[in-house]
């Protein structure tokens, strides 16, 4: 599902070179649940951004969901993104739209037929346990609920791969555990997941394969 070969990423800020990733190789198989961890600044976000082609690698090869990401032309990027669900630390919900509309929006822009949208939105809401809050605006939802709507939006398009960048970063511990439990359920239903978190405790609580980045290098790959 995800494969990296000797991937490196250098950011250039004028004369300054920042080596965000160096010589990173690993593979995440279909149906796996992998945790990406490491201290702040280790390169986790950069790595995820490479996977959904928000950034291009300076060197190396990347394959995601059957796409040769490095060779992808700009017009083909939407195809890759359709195969990937993405959630971030902040939910990125549109403030003027209800939970239902936020999820439906993600489907409508993809040209999903109208009659398919309602059942899919409700299915996604059910999967995150928010069926009762469909008509709530983001401001009326708790942070944990907002994050679950974001998760539902990512799930509604039935992605083969789910990427999560610090999805519990803004949540307190109890709510974090609830959200992580949701990821677990989603994984059990067959979605491949790659979840980035700087928190080693969270990573160890999940008891899954853990990839550890330090200063842009993969230093450990254990469990799973």
């Amino acid at each position: 599902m995800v494969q990296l070969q000797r991937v490196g990423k250098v950011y250039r800020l004028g004369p300054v070179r920042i080596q965000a990733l160096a010589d990173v190789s690993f593979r995440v198989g279909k149906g796996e649940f992998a945790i990406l961890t490491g201290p702040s600044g280790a390169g986790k976000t950069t790595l995820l951004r490479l996977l959904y082609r928000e950034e291009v690698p300076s060197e190396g090869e990347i394959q995601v969901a059957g796409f040769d990401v490095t060779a992808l032309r700009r017009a083909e990027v939407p195809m890759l993104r359709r195969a990937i669900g993405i959630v971030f630390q902040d939910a990125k919900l549109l403030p003027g739209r209800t939970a239902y509309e936020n999820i439906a929006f993600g489907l409508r822009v993809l040209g999903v037929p109208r009659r398919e949208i309602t059942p899919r939105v409700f299915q996604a809401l059910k999967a995150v346990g928010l069926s009762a809050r469909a008509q709530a605006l983001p401001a009326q939802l708790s942070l944990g609920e907002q994050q679950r709507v974001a998760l539902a939006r990512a799930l509604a398009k039935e992605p083969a791969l789910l990427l999560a960048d610090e999805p519990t970063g803004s949540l307190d511990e109890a709510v974090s555990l609830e959200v992580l439990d949701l990821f677990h359920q989603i994984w059990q239903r067959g979605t491949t997941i790659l979840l980035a978190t700087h928190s080693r405790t969270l990573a160890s609580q999940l008891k899954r394969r853990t990839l550890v980045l330090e200063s842009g290098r993969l230093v450990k790959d254990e469990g799973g």
Partner: protein
Amino acid sequence: MLGFLLGETVRDLRRAGRVGVSAVFLITLSLAALGCFWLLSLNLGRAVAEWRERLRVIAYLKAEPPPEAVAPLLKRIEALGGIQRLRYVDKREALATLKRELGSQAGVVDQLPSNPLPASVEVTPARDAATPEATRALVQRLMELPEVEEVQGGTEWVERLAQWQRLLGGIGLGVGGVLALAAILTVTTATTLVLHVKRAEMEIMRLVGATEAVIRVPLLLQGLLQGLLGAVMALGSLWLAYTVALPRLEPLLTLTLGLQRASFLSPLEVVLLLGGGGLLGAFGGLLARGRGPA
């Protein structure tokens, strides 16, 4: 999908808000100015064409030629070139015409001991030779004929009218062009504003994998709608001005230009103006650049 795109377009149009309204007004203004000069130039052009049609050069003859000499004379004149039509007017006909023109006072003519009017040849220049230079040359050549006493007629003032027409057309294009440029920039500003307001939305669209077309089409459409709205308003105000001013202007037109009726823009020209408005708006929408795709 179409429903989604149109819904987003309406949303974007609302988000353009006050800047969008000024964009519509600027488009109205630019197209109204353009249309106004166009309308003037159009009617002036018709007057010029009509006058060119009516233009005659009259060659008065020294003496009335005997009947058998008329045809050869006309042939020689025709050979001068640049002539559309020729008509010989003998002394009797000239007198009859004068009598008709005098109407009730025609009796005066009968008091005359003899017919004082000369015979003449009415020359209508060929349409492509109705320029001032060609007409002057024709007059010159007619004067050189031994039978000809005097030549009357010319095109100077018709040409001056034509110059006015071209000037008006030019001013219209200039003023309209400058305003159109301002209009495009305003639509661009309005659209950039929309881009700014909807950048969160565009980020989500790009993340989930919407194509650039889906992202840009509503912006293009809201620009196009601003343009069309402006064009409709411009046409409306032109039509209003035309119908209000016309009854007052028409007698004046007849007197000065010899035009019986002024005319409005033709359906084709109306469509062109509408299309121009739409194009201005769409172009403005297209020019707007927010944060592009990564």
